[in-house]
């Protein structure tokens, strides 16, 4: 079980958080302009990387804030956390 450093609350147990999948998938501003394939790409396609992955987490049983996490999925090491809207730090 991880320890996640919530950017608003500090280090907490993983059980306080919920995972929200891959990060930096921006909802298209003009969905109606997209083809079925392009929309499906946004809707369904995820990278599911073995290694360094950018993902969203929510401090569900805490401050309820969403933020981003850089995690190595092969060993669960968390390299960085950063707030929504911020540029990912270089690791």
């Amino acid at each position: 079980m991880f320890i996640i450093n919530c950017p608003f609350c500090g280090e907490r147990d993983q059980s306080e958080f919920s995972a929200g999948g891959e990060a930096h998938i921006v909802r298209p501003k003009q969905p109606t302009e997209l083809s079925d394939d392009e929309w499906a790409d946004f809707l369904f396609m995820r990278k599911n990387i073995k290694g360094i992955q950018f993902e969203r987490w929510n401090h569900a049983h805490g401050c309820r804030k969403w933020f981003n996490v850089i995690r190595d999925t092969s060993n669960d090491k968390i390299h960085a956390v950063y707030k929504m809207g911020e540029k990912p730090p270089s690791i």
Partner: protein
Amino acid sequence: MSENFRSIETKFLDKTNRISFKYNGKKYYGYKGDTLASALLSNGVHLIGRSFKYHRPRGIMTCGSEEPNAIVQIGGNGSFTEPNVRATEQEIYEGLEASSQNCWPSVEFDIGGINNLISPVIPAGFYYKTFMWPKKLWYSLYEPAIRLSAGLGKSPTQPDPELYDHNHLHCDVLIVGGGISGIIAASISADNGNNTVLIDDKNSLGGSTIYQNDENFKINDEISSTWLDKKIKELKKKQNLTIKHRTSVAAFHGYNYLLARESLADHKSLDERLNKLRQRLWKIRAKKVILATGAIERPLIFNNNDRPGVMLANSVKKYIDFFGVKCGNKNIIFTNNDSAYETAISLNKKGIEVVVIDIRKNSSSTLVQTTKDAGIKIYWNHAIVNTSGYRRIKSIQIMEMSEDGTNVVGKKTSLLCDSLSISGGWTPMVHLFTQSGGKLKFRDADQVFLPNTVISDQISIGSCNGDFELDDVIKNTISECKNFLSASVIDYDLLKVSCPKQKESKNIWLLPNNKPLGKTKPFLDFQNDSTAKDIKLAMREGFKSIEHVKRYTTTGMGTDQGKLANMHALGIISETAGVKMGSLGTTTFRPPYTPLTFGTIVGRNVGTFFDITRKTPMHDWHKDHKAQFENVGQWKRAWYYPKDGENMYQAVQRESKAARESAGILDASTLGKIDIKGTDASEFLNRVYTNAWSKLGISKCRYGLMLNEDGMVYDDGVTTRLGENHYLMTTTTGGAANVLSKLEDYLQTEWPELDVWLTSVTDHFATASICGPNSKNILKKLFPNLDFNDENFPHMSFKNAEMDGINCRIMRISFTGEHSYEINIESKYGKSLWEKCMDAGKEFNITPYGTETMHLLRAEKGFIIVGQDTDGTMTPIDLQMDWIVSKKKYDFIGKRSLYRSDTMREDRKQLVGLLTDNPKEILEEGAQIVKNEKKQPIEMLGHVTSSYFSPNLNKSIALAVVKNGKKLKGQKLLVPMKDKTINVTVSDFIFFDSKNERLNA
């Protein structure tokens, strides 16, 4: 029965505390501190059970958690009974009752033993190959028969009466294992100011060194056990150190999160245990972890190596040196390394006859010299080729080994014995290390897997790190700990250690024999009865991966998880396949390290503490009025209110009629409520609901449908505009938390520019919903100053009001199709609001109704329930709710998905009504709907989602989702049931008052 085999004095047992216990109904004696195994051995009992497949007699083999054979049932027949307990770990207590569990009808006479005689026809995969076909016989014949004769113990038939607890523990340094390396590490850690916890699974510290009385093993000129004993006494006085005995680490997860089971009462009599904690599960977060989990001795794999009396050499040493119990009078030791000579010397010192068989050609260590000096006969370069003795080993046959060790040559020699101690070297216990994500490396010299790379802040020390000799253990433990803990205070810098052993062993995974493999029984996994032959057969049949071989042969799949067998299985695979063992990898080590009881896992979360129960403020009233409750998520909701012996059907029919004929009242407090504020609140609702919100007037209500981004219906509810920038959203009871979290997600991540604030207020308000033709009259009595004129307070509008000076919010909204009001009040006034409603409604026969009637009434109106009539594959178009999907809005969550080729298909499953041809016939919810029963395979068109007998229509009605349903209106379909087929006609799904006249009646 006397203890013929306890001839030696020992300081580790309390000889003044004699304890009686029962084993298989017979009374025996032992001492406080004895394990069940040591106590039985002291009484000369070796035979414990029958093996799983061949029902061969098996005896105690080890002295620890790796025990494959001595698995017993503890605690008689009562609720205290527990199967699969290792006799080598269970401490005896006064009145303990234990029994063999793998020996129906009895351990002495065994019907399953017939398997042993026909064993040539029970090869690997036998159960798979034979009993899986014909399949129908599996449940009726094979499985019960196998279970009866294999006997995996019996589970208690009553709830566990004992108490369990969970606790959290945080520390700087956690040390797992209280042997000599763990003790040195704990001492260094504590001395350097770390908050330290030392965990050990035995009842006293010291590992195997604490009973090492041999002059050959010295630390600073003291016998190693004497030195260690002093260190333990010092350790107990240290600050910053907690020692936990009888505590076994079950799991080591990432980020140094460990689970450990502390056994508090398993060694106590049932009287002493009453109302006390039995076990506690520690949830540990350690900044640093030091694993000192030790090593397990390997058996040797030779023909008939499984007879009672065959034991691991170091276990025999522990029984004699620690428990004062001799495992036999005529001992033979069979080894491939020096460590078994420690056992030989110990036995010899106590005057017990001993002979050594060594597969090596020689060894020149001091230890071997001491053995020779004691006059112990050593057969070098010999291997055991057979053993005899049914219930106890009687003799062995040995032969000389060929030059290259692959064969045996010359004449057989027979030797008599009643105890055979075997040693095949050591296997480091890397289970916890690999559970934590650590990767192993292979050391060719002695064929061991060792800790290599780690992810979390941890080290492994001592024999679990591959240091098997005292000098290496001490030297490396000190330097590793110094480094790892950046320690400056070290007491141990100048330790002088003497170790008289030679480190070379000769590793042969499967010993040679004069007979072909098919004619011998070299057991590998004693608990699951798999032999070297099974492994080879599996490989011949094409299994290559260790994980597959394991499952096919069941090697390593018993309650001991193959602690003894796995390495040999790997070794034989590697030898047979000609692959380097290091490149084969190991099977996955999964938690728990030793079995945990369910009680420990659930702790206090049983019965009413299993889950949170949410009750509305009116709950007690419902209870007082005999309501039956149903669980909706964590909520207890009033289901129906039976009167005068009514059953559910009768109660619901009465409630439903009353609600439409005069007045009904429902506790709607559980509906999710989200308070929405901010200058962009209207825009926000525009984006999350399918319909338009900008033009909703203040004090007006609107029904909204929420989709997922994939276009499927997610939730619904009525939202009220309380002010210019203030809304109150309601959600389904079950969906409240998810909706809030979804809305927060969009606000924080996609639309952070919106000025919107969400607050969950579900628990803040109690809601009474009053419906029916007399609802307005009741409301007028409750709020005499409020204008209930339909023009001033129309359907789908809202007013603030006061009841006895308490603010209320009244929404005129309806889920039943009746003229209806919802009164919201601060939760603490909920019950008195309800009582006032009942008082005011008395003259109108106001009838409380529960969720079942609510469901019936809304089904008459064709209102959907998200989650019952929808299942995550229904779009609003499928639900024939096109009217609520805005065509004008540029975007809302899920809009684009409604235009995907699949969601636009016309033959999707769609919501329809169903009427049974016989109006008295009620369909079953979930029943399948078909068109043609004759044509196979029968095409399934859909299923019934809601079904009731409508008292207001006096006929059966149902909602269903049916493929291409919109176009099937008026058509006949079939609902096949177990004993009949029901004829139905597809209909409109609004059955009652389709013009909505009653809303304003």
